[in-house]
């Protein structure tokens, strides 16, 4: 089973992007695409957040058997942020996606985290550690570790292995409840094996970060790694399938 756990939708009035995305994903053998909002890099109004989610669910409705939608929110919007999450679950969401509107340790996250725990769904947090300096409300791996310790029952997925995988792996290595996804452009030779060595094969999930990334490039970093076939199967789909309750 091959599941891309980290794909972004795109403004797509005529559906052309979605058709191309699905055609290429199916050509490569991907069974499901977990879709999130269009990439966002700031704090926005509720209207913008709703527009992002509308895009996600419109895309989902084009191929409901293929796409697995996550609802996106900006926790700093307070009750409206939580209401938007609930609206997303009413429309078929299977998880929650957070970007760079709030650092995950901010107090405003608490109701969102509690909602994820209550519904027993995964919460994916964009995470990066940049030597050039993070965005103002951009979560780092050490923040995910803190939340993982505080909420061990939360199914938290630290996206992108925190960008700099050396940092990200060490940040969460002793927090067994935190998963990570290896989506994105980084394909440092050996980092997939190192991630499994420190976190175990059950905590790493494959994703691409399309539309900015290439399916084949990102798939090859797991396929080309020296993991056992059993561990590759976990990373490429089985771990995601368990989190999403597909198996």
């Amino acid at each position: 089973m091959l599941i891309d756990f980290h794909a972004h939708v795109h403004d797509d009035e005529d559906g052309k992007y979605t058709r191309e995305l699905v055609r290429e994903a199916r050509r490569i053998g991907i069974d499901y695409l977990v879709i999130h909002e269009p990439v966002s890099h700031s704090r926005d109004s509720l209207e913008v957040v709703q527009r992002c989610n509308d895009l996600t669910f419109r895309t989902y409705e084009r191929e409901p058997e293929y796409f697995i939608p996550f609802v996106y929110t900006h926790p700093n919007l307070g009750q409206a942020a939580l209401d938007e999450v609930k609206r997303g679950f009413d429309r078929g969401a299977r998880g929650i996606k957070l970007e760079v509107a709030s650092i995950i340790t901010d107090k405003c996250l608490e109701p969102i985290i509690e909602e994820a725990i209550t519904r027993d769904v995964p919460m994916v947090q964009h995470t990066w550690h940049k030597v050039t300096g993070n965005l103002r409300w951009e979560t780092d791996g050490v923040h995910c570790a803190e939340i993982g310790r505080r909420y061990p029952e939360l199914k938290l997925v630290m996206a992108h292995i925190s960008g700099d995988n050396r940092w990200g792996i060490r940040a969460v290595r002793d927090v067994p409840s935190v998963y990570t996804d290896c989506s994105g452009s980084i394909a440092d030779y050996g980092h997939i094996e190192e991630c499994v060595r420190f976190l175990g094969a059950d905590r790493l999930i494959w994703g691409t970060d399309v539309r900015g990334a290439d399916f084949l490039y990102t798939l090859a970093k797991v396929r080309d790694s020296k993991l056992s076939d059993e561990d590759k199967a976990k990373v490429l789909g089985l771990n995601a399938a368990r989190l999403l309750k597909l198996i």
Partner: protein
Amino acid sequence: MIDFCCDIGNYAFRPWPANDTASTLEELDRAGISQAVVGSIDAITYVSPHPANELLMDDIKATDAEGRLIPYTVLSPVYPGVEQDMRESREIGFRGLKLYPNYHGYQVDDPPALRLLEMAAGWGWPSVVSIRIEDERHHHPLMKVRSVPLNSVIWAARQLPEATIIVSGANSVETPQLLELSDELPNLYVELSYVKGPVAAVAKLVERFGSKRMLLGTHLPFVYPGCGIAKIAEADITQQAKQDILEDNARRILEL
């Protein structure tokens, strides 16, 4: 397949699974790559790069009996005695030039670099100009190295139409900007190691620009070699386009 972006040696900022000629040849075998253009990684951070070239050549001569590795000398055009280092490189078996303007502190369109590129072209050597080797967000906190300005490489290629220049490490935004100049600059090529997106990245590039100016680059040992290969070999493009990018264009440049 011929890899136009493969380096050998130790990197100051992280360990790699392959750091010498023998382990690199094993990696190339595993990836199905027959030949690779190689330079010294140590030379990137050596203040005086040439001793690293000599070490690499010793290693190649001791290990690569079949001549699968095509060595390129890594030099700094602004370092004293660089022209003598160039000549010595040629005498001991190097077959091309590789420049890292951002790590050695110069612009590739400045006179010293142009002189070295001209010298290489005079010997029929291709020259590789590296734009970046690692994501700028993940550098050592005390050694943040900016990427090379694309315009400086384009300017150098314009100034020296007789020089074959291969741009290495150009990303998904920069690569189309370079390929758009294919008609104007027939001496300019791009290796694709740093093209990591968008969806169907290589198919989109081939559709826009054809397949004659792009080269396979794995960026071994920094990156899993399969990433560089899969995006070309499994792309939805013709067999001829794959053959061009994976091998034939490099074969033409290298006169193999």
